[in-house]
């Protein structure tokens, strides 16, 4: 059996196969071959490497495309908001310019990383079927939607982390984006508190508090790691729920984001 011929063929299907194989297990693989492990064992070893490379990648592609859908949504939202005349007051322009910049960077990174596996940008309806009809003419609505998008983004990335356990580097990138979305969320929530005159909205999520209540289901969870934390350190339920952000699975996120997506 000609291993290098196989890797060659493999390369034709998957341009980066060798790179990934090397990254993952090539050294280990070659060591084992070098150590004169019986030739009979080689096909098995090789097959397991190939399977592993494909399995990890397919899962990661799925997660990254899911992330890309949400980043496209956010990116388009801020592009439209930042371009709209008389929407964002001068005092808050810097904030939304910075957020918009990050969302564009996230899109660019994911598109580059996914290559020809990247999904196409969907067409969006930011009026959410009419529920947010004045989203780009009324700052209050714009901030409300912004805070909801950011908090949903945080929940979405958190919900996918476990899917990336086998891809540590991709996991790390996802975490690095996740905490940026959380910074955005804190900032936009504080703006939302002002524009909606609801001081109960803080940078962190108390119970299920937020400008669009429907998206905070489960945020009032008091049980962590199987332990009911009620009364922990004599702190209030409010503080305990604030101290932990809760994930959403993909289905729940898409149920929230769905009405924004026309096609």
């Amino acid at each position, binding site marked *: 059996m000609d291993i290098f011929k196989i890797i060659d063929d493999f390369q034709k299907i998957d341009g980066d196969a060798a790179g990934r194989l090397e990254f993952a297990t090539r050294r280990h693989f070659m060591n084992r071959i070098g150590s004169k492990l019986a030739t009979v064992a080689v096909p098995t070893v090789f097959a397991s490497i190939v399977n592993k490379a494909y399995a990890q990648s397919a899962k990661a592609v799925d997660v990254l495309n899911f992330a890309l859908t949400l980043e496209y949504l956010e990116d388009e939202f801020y592009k439209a908001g930042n371009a709209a005349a008389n929407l964002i007051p001068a005092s808050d322009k810097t904030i939304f310019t910075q957020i918009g910049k990050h969302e564009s960077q996230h899109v660019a990174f994911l598109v580059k990383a996914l290559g020809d596996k990247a999904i196409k940008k969907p067409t969006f309806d930011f009026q959410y079927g009419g529920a947010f009809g004045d989203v780009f003419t009324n700052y209050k609505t714009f901030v409300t939607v912004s805070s909801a998008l950011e908090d949903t983004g945080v929940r979405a990335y958190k919900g996918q982390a476990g899917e990336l356990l086998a891809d540590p580097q991709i996991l790390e990138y996802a975490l690095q984006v996740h905490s*940026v979305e959380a910074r955005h969320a804190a900032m936009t929530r504080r703006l939302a508190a002002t524009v909606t005159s609801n001081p109960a909205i803080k940078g962190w999520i108390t119970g299920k508090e937020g400008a669009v209540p429907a998206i905070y289901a489960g945020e009032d969870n008091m049980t*962590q790691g199987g332990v009911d934390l009620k009364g922990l350190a004599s702190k209030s339920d409010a503080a305990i729920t604030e101290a932990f952000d809760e*994930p959403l699975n993909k289905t729940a996120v898409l149920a929230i984001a*769905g009405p924004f997506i026309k096609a």
Partner: protein
Amino acid sequence: MNRLMKSKNDSGKEEGASASVVNRRLFLRSAGLATSLGTIVIAAACNDDDPDPMIPGTGDSVDLGSGDVGVLNYAYALEQLEAAFYTQVIATPFAGITDAEKTILTDIRDHEIIHRDFFKKALGDKAIKDLTPNFATIDFTKRDSVLGAAKLFEDTGVAAYNGAGRLLKDAGNLLLAGKIVSVEARHAAVIRDLLKPKSADFAGDDIINENGFDKAVAPADILAAVKGYVKDTITGANVGK
């Protein structure tokens, strides 16, 4: 939503067929910015400085342990420092503190205490001892000193959790870390906004890179960066291993 899920499923099948994938090399290239929060933190700590960052031998030697337990103890150590810091901030408020600032800092104090006590409980008899913090370099009477240190602790906490995620083997532990790190990121954004209101600093270019990524820093670098703030000598060589 149905449309989206359907189109996603369809594209998923195509992916299965042609089987290719994420270009890891691209990823690695973009990651080349393996930036070091370590440097920043150390530099900042030196600014505050600090006649005597750390007198060796004034505390105990603490080994965080190995595997997931090591990672959780690492988080527990950082939460201990944060909780102690904010406890002091609220016990001796800086001059001119506003009601709004006091509310925010009290909230954060409570979150950090909850994180600390949660880890202690979760780790049970595997938990490291109570650490002895060393905040000699922080002037708790001055707003800039307190908020500057808070910013440092929060950004460091975010970078530490982000860097530790890949070391965890258990999905439940990873989710827990994820639930906490975003709260630390919220703290960081709010503290940064207190320091420079309505600026880009809540997610500033000093901390977010050109891919729009927050920092992710390995335990060894984080431990080196915070060692001036704790009297005990913490070793984390086997964290996640």
